């Protein structure tokens, strides 16, 4: 497989797009991959479902839309409901464990939950939940080096909030490492990414 497909879904206001942009940036600029990121908003501008789709590949990407994601990150129940069935067999699911009840889990899917909101609230700003998720993603998928992700974080977030967001990232990252050790719900660790070659 020459490319990997990632989808992030949630509600408007949860920072899904920023998380996706940061991830995409990390992959595109600091992992030297070809990356195509597309987003769709719900029909109404605000408060509704939104999702980000990322393709990362070693070769130029022409068709920028996902067929079936390899990795799905869901931050809302709605996003889970809508997108989980599309996940590739053997794909990986990450989810906000207090907002999403990851059930029913599609066949063969490995899932990791992260209490991102709570971790963010520990930092005093629920808002940075998205960066917690990103840290978690980085740890669990191994798709990009934490340095790449950190650099992307500092460049993507509003000026003056770098430290806070990086702290959130670290919280998520640490949590991800812990959960990895603990295993997925099926007890299977996600394998090394076919395109990054790193774990």
């Amino acid at each position, binding site marked *: 497989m020459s490319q990997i497909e990632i989808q992030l879904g949630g509600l408007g206001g949860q920072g899904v797009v920023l998380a996706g942009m940061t991830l995409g940036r990390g992959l595109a600029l600091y992992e030297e991959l*070809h*990356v195509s*990121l*597309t987003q769709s908003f719900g029909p109404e501008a605000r408060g509704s479902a939104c999702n980000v789709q990322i393709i990362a590949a070693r070769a130029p990407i022409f068709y920028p*839309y996902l067929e079936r994601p390899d990795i799905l990150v869901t931050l809302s129940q709605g996003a889970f409901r809508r997108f989980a069935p599309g996940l590739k067999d053997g794909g990986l699911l990450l989810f906000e464990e207090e907002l999403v009840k990851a059930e029913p889990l599609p066949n063969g899917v490995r899932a990791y939950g992260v209490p991102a909101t709570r971790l963010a609230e520990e930092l005093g700003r629920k808002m940075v939940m998205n960066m917690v998720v990103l840290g978690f993603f980085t740890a669990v998928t191994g798709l990009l080096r934490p340095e790449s992700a950190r650099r992307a974080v500092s460049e993507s977030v509003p000026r003056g909030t770098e430290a806070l967001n990086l702290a959130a990232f670290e919280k998520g990252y640490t949590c991800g490492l812990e959960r990895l050790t603990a295993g997925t719900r099926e007890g299977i660790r996600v394998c090394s990414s076919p395109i990054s070659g790193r774990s």
Partner: protein
Amino acid sequence: MKADPIGVLTGTHFFDGDHACCEGALAAGCRFAAGYPITPSTEIVERFAQRAPLVGGMFLQMEDELAASIAIQGAVWAGAKAFTVTSGPGFSLMMEHIGFAAMTETPCVIVNVQRGGPSTGLPTLPGQADMMQARWGSHGDYELIALAPSSPQECFDLTIHAFNLAEQYRVPVLVMMDECVGHMTEKVVIPPASEIEVAPRRYTRLPRGEYVPFHAGPDGVPEMVRAGEGYRIHVTGMTHDEQGFPAPTVEAQQKLVQRLVEKIRRNAEAIVRYEETGVEDAEVVVVAYGITARVARRAVELARQQGVRAGLLRPVVVWPFPENRIAELARRVRAFVVAEMNLGQIALEVERCSAGNAPTVLVPHGGGAVHHPEEILEVILAQARTEEVLR
């Protein structure tokens, strides 16, 4: 001429098409933007508003699109390079001033990030149904140039190209993006200023007495001056003589309008630009532009996988249209398949240019999302098997 480094954000970026477009404008030397907010184009000028004050430029938010599309022309005649950006409804409001720019030969760039129409339609979702409007939307005879980028990188590159073409031919140049390309984020490489070619304004060197403002050289394009330099020019949207004064006569009309049209038609071969993939041996050629070209390319790949010799012709410059190339191909391909996010626009041009030598089959789409590659694939396969005209 090379780009002024102050406006060039050299480096590798992760930009969406809207942001890339803004950077293209800045790199091209654009220092004035006027606009009126409209989804999904506003990000372009929002970024411009951020960046311009740092590079000696200015974004002016006008009261409507009528104002925005003429304010840039005032700025151009004051010496600036200028552009405006909009989407469907705003584009419709700019029609009168596209004609004014064509008539007064005011070099300027107008970006339309196409959304679903008609009317308010689908404000946040994509469309490609303003393509004929781009060519025909203002009253009277005129010609202009329209480009259709397929990626954020091209949003950058073609925006620069748009400014350059505008200066070279003194026409309004349209960058016909679509919401998908505008909101898709990819790597965008901005080269050093020294590697960016920027067309200077074609200012005259003649002194006042000798300079004839609308007297054209051999390529049909007159030299320009700007206000405040002592030339005391007159510029009017009325039919005018070479001095620029109203000349409401049949003769002046014929001479002027003919030239305005010919300066593009005669130079069409130089302006036309398209990209071909697998067309050499193709029996079915898909014609698609903007985001749809990327979807079509997948369909072409899938067709090839199924043993069908499919190819893709992507007009990069949509107006003037690659008439000759289509006519040429028509004589040897089985069929053209036109995929566009509308119910048939560029397909009509393909049909016309193919002059009955190959059928043109449209894969229409109402807008709001891209085609599924399978939809295009199916038509390619059907055409590979048949020679009937389906339209």
